[in-house]
């Protein structure tokens, strides 16, 4: 087994990987950019190395500097986390050439599956149903031609993409040009590849994905599904296992699991991976893509299977055989995850970086919090707005939802804005509680939602709190006139002047 592993990532996933390494008795080497010097992942690590300035192109995407850091610190393997270089085949190959073990699949598998278009072609030849699309990067004219043939709405997606970056829904011809330009420039910045392809859009699909795990000896299992239908701007915000749909139709788990393993085996896959499917209203599933890395939402699978996916990834990378076979896998209870973002749900979910002035964490039964934040830390504006993943487990989905609401009520982040309050509304929503999910859920939720009228007494309490707060001096107010005089003194003088 390895003695020391470098984590080529930041934020909550670097913290999460560090935790497992420490449980395994393996030293963790952190890397950081200038704005991340005081980040939790650096503070928790055993060793740390600076990569460069804040922009990820000068730090977390610099293969040369990461390899230098690994050599300097004597790491034997590199865990890429998710995002950044995790699905970059050149990085995986460069690690192996430098004598370092890349904790993930082979560079060949990443090439075969990591490119969405290449993966689609492979799935087509394996007989897996796919959504009609161009299967390669397109020009504006080609995108126009595809739309003319298949009709709007269409979906633009980054060839090298993931996580909704470089993705745009286009409903009308006149929006196509600017959408393609935006998607392409976003793809260039996120993945250093501006290519964008086009797909027909399936209305009201569910997003359900299968976690797979394979060793380097040809063994492969699936760990069941995660439903990630609750998305906004094509980015997942709530994930759960089991899927409410699969809970009603258990045969789907085996069918999709088998299809996922077939697709991965065809590419000689090993280590952890995720095969994503769209499921339409008639429960037909379509291969979407393979994520050749650990997923953000892996904790829900860990909670229902009792497995540590990072530990298994490390063991597989070290050459171990899978310690179980498919029939040993069992699923217990229900797990739900919320992605807590630094963003303003009352202003179109725009990012809201800044300093965290107060932090209260949810605790108690059935709570798991994967986070990278602490009180006094400034959330940088250069990276993803993901602050934390709040995950709950309970015996049933109904109990898990109740537990999540309880946990959300305990969770407070002050100084910046977050989507915590938005989650509370979602979990109170009857459609969510009944498991009627699809990827347009949030848009429809907003459309049908009538903001609940708060109880009159709460308005009184709120008014009192605002009145009290207004009597405190505003440190930010320029020329806050009263020269530090307490408003009570001021009020007293006014009374005397009567």
């Amino acid at each position, binding site marked *: 087994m390895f003695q020391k592993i470098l984590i080529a990532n930041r934020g909550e996933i670097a913290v999460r990987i560090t935790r497992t390494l420490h449980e395994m008795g393996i030293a963790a080497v952190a890397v950081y950019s200038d704005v991340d010097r005081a980040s939790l992942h650096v503070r928790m690590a055993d060793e740390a190395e600076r990569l460069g300035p804040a922009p990820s192109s000068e730090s977390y995407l610099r293969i040369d500097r990461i390899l230098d850091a690994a050599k300097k610190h004597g790491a034997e393997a590199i865990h890429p986390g998710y995002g950044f270089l995790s699905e970059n085949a050149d990085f995986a190959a460069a690690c192996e050439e430098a004598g370092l073990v890349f904790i993930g699949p082979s560079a060949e598998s990443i090439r075969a599956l990591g490119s969405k278009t290449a993966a689609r072609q492979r799935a087509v030849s394996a007989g897996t149903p796919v959504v009609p699309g161009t299967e390669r990067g397109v020009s504006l004219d080609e995108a126009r031609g595809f739309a003319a043939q298949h009709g709007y709405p269409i979906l633009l997606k980054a060839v090298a993409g993931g996580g909704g970056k470089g993705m745009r829904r286009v409903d009308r011809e006149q929006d196509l040009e600017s959408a393609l330009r935006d998607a392409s420039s976003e793809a260039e910045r996120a993945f250093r590849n501006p290519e964008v392809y086009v797909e027909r859009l399936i209305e009201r699909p569910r997003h359900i994905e299968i976690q797979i795990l394979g060793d380097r000896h040809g063994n492969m299992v699936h760990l069941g599904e995660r439903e990630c239908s609750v998305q906004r701007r094509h980015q997942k915000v709530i994930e759960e296992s089991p899927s409410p749909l699969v809970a009603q139709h258990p045969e789907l788990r085996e069918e999709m699991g088998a299809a996922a393993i077939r697709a991965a085996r065809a590419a000689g896959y090993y280590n952890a991976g995720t095969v994503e499917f769209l499921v339409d209203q008639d429960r037909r599933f379509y291969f979407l893509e393979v994520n050749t890395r650990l997923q953000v939402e892996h904790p829900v699978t860990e909670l229902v299977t009792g497995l540590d996916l990072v530990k298994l990834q490390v063991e597989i990378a070290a050459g171990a055989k899978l310690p179980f076979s498919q029939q040993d896998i069992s699923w217990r209870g229900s797990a739900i995850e919320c992605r807590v973002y630094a963003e303003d749900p009352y202003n*179109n979910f725009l*990012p809201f*970086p800044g300093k965290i002035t*107060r932090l209260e964490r949810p605790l108690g039964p059935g709570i798991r919090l994967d986070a990278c934040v602490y009180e006094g830390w400034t959330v940088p504006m250069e990276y993803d707005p993901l602050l934390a993943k709040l995950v709950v487990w309970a015996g049933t989905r109904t109990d898990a939802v109740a537990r999540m609401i309880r946990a959300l009520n305990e969770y407070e982040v002050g100084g910046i804005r977050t989507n915590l309050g938005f989650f509370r509304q979602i979990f109170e929503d009857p459609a969510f509680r009944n498991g009627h999910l699809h990827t347009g859920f949030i848009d429809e939720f907003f459309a049908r939602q009538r903001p609940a009228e708060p109880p009159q007494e709460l*308005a009184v309490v709120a*008014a009192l*709190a605002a009145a*009290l707060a207004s*009597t405190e001096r505003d440190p930010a107010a320029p020329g806050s006139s009263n020269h530090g005089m307490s408003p009570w003194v001021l009020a007293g003088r006014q009374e005397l002047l009567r």
Partner: protein
Amino acid sequence: MKLNLKVNGTPREIEILAPAPLCQFRVDGGSARSADIAIPGSGLYSILLDGRSYDVQVERTPQHFIVVINGHRFEIEVHDPRRWSGRSGQQGGADIETIAAPMPGKVVRVLVKAGDTVVAGQGVAVVEAMKMQNEMKASRAGRVMTVTVQEGATVTAGEVLATIA
């Protein structure tokens, strides 16, 4: 001390008769009530009122206070009639459109310069934060009066980028 409030747009009057921690107050001229106030953290109020416990978060913005209780959100403007340094009237004239940063971030592109004429929906500037770009557009046709930021500038939420007349 009497304060005029707007709670989610509804005018209310609150009179503080005695300060925290044993606060006496009156709302909209009603009878005096008592509340027990503790301040466990910055922007955090624990209020006991008629035997009930309320944990209240208060965020101060340039325009108002955002108060959150049990997931309910209130936007509250506070006007102290005795203070002349009122917070209103800071917007420009009625026919001047102010283009403001929608979020804290960095100005990655400025698409107009002072004196340019713009059409409705034309891009003015692009602000980026956390890998998300937001193009601020003119809501109507007009002439660019001022451009107050340069490419590469860091801005706060609500900071003015340009004005259009």
